[in-house]
């Protein structure tokens, strides 16, 4: 609270009349004026909502990832939100992952499980790739360390928030599911060198 003392200034400065503290001025103490202003404020909110300014997303029918007729996002998911992961594909549709296990070691929640195997001989750019890549979404704390640890930009966190499932087993995403998850975020995130 920066409440300046009215007498602290130099004598040469013009003396301004300090506004009374909140709640002490005559209009505040009469209540009615301020109540009328408050009513005006809520009326404005009312008007704005009636004219289509409501923040509600009609959930089961629509969700925040959809766009309305004017191609505006219905909700406002932050593009930097850390939600569900994807495994990034390269130009040939293969996973970028080289099974270096850095994400697995970086993960504080121990939710990533990788079984490496030698890459097929025709894959000239890498020696290993994951045979099994499992990510336990129930354990994950969405910290994003895996994304930071990855040297190949092979795993990303995307703003996708929810995927309802009916069993715990379904919350463990395998490699294929991670590759297919939220395909919009497969686009290049970093400029190529």
């Amino acid at each position, binding site marked *: 609270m920066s409440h300046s003392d009215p007498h602290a200034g130099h004598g040469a400065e013009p003396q301004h009349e300090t506004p009374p503290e909140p709640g002490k001025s005559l209009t505040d103490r009469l209540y009615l004026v301020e109540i009328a202003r*408050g009513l005006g404020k809520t009326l404005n*909110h009312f008007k704005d909502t009636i004219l289509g300014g409501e923040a509600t997303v009609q959930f089961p029918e629509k969700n925040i990832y959809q766009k309305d007729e004017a191609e505006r996002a219905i909700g406002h998911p932050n593009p930097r939100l850390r939600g569900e992961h994807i495994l990034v594909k390269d130009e040939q549709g293969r996973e970028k992952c080289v099974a270096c296990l850095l994400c697995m070691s970086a993960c504080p929640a121990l939710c990533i499980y990788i079984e490496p195997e030698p890459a097929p001989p025709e894959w000239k750019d890498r020696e290993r790739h994951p045979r099994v890549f499992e990510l336990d979404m129930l354990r994950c704390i969405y910290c994003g360390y895996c994304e930071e640890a990855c040297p190949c930009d092979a795993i990303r966190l995307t703003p996708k928030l929810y995927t309802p499932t009916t069993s715990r087993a379904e919350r463990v995403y395998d490699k294929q599911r991670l590759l297919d998850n939220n395909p919009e975020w497969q686009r290049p995130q970093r400029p190529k060198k």
Partner: protein
Amino acid sequence: MLAYGLWDLGGSALKSLLVILGILNTVPILIWLERKICAFIQGRVGPNRVGPFGLLQPLADAIKLAFKEEIIPADADRVLYLLAPFLAFLPSAAAFAFVPFGPEVKSASGELVADLRVAPGSGAGLLLLLATTTLAVYGVAFGGWASNSKYPLMGAVRATAQMISYEIAMGLALVAVIASTGSIDLQQFVADQARPLLGAEFAPPLRWIPNWHVFHQPVAFVLFLIAMFAENNRLPFDLAEAEPELGAGYHTEYTGLKFAMFFMGEYVAMIMMSGLCVTLFLGGWHVPGMPLLEGARGALEPAVSSGAVAAIGVLVFVTKVMLVLCFYMWVRWTLPRFRYDQLMRLGWKMLIPVGLANLFITGVMLVL
């Protein structure tokens, strides 16, 4: 009006049936309206799943309440406990008997055909009405007392103290209006407000402004408005059910339909107060331009045209009441709740002195 025959009795019964049906059907609409207005003010959309625009939501709520378990606390005073919801509901509903919904229907010879009040010719309507509405506090008090539980009791005590305090302010506001009207007959009140504004003869351009009491007794109107909110335990004065302090207040221990009864009683009391406010200050069934209609009477059979005017009067009245009810909700979602000492200070130290001063000035003006 001593000749109160069987015919009048039948008419009253019919009218009261109509009025009660009207009120009971307004309550769900009000609940829906309240939730919608609340939602829009808060940037939400409100109930929209049950029926078109969520209109059937109150019905769904009522069905839900009907299937709730009825619980009576073990140490409750059973008689009072069961009586309280009805006491909260009935007086407000009964008070509608004295409200003039529309102008009197007269035949060509000026003979009274129909009085649009349930209790025809109730000359002391205002007093009876105030006396009846005041009884509603017994429902709240009994409900809180009979539950034998601490929070309801606190709520009931608060509600009682608050209602008594604000009734004085309301009474003072009304006395000023009564003094300037010179009558306590509600029909007379409206007739008085249908005239051009008092003193407008000196300023002809203002003659179209009706003599609604809100224009010539604005202080009394503001006092009445504030007291109205306090009487109905509505925000910013809903101390009787201040959730953070008292749970649900005086009806904490009530479930199911008994709770619904309290809830409904609250809304009926709101309609009642709005009706009173409209009748006393906002011109009742009168609307500027009504004399034009009266002028058109010559074209029709007098009784028919008189009936038509009465019908329009009822519509105008209902519209005005709905607007006042919307104002109730608008205020509710604008203002925070008063603290209890603030409430009492406002009532006793501000409203009552202002009411007395207003009454004094009115008296001086009348004598002059």
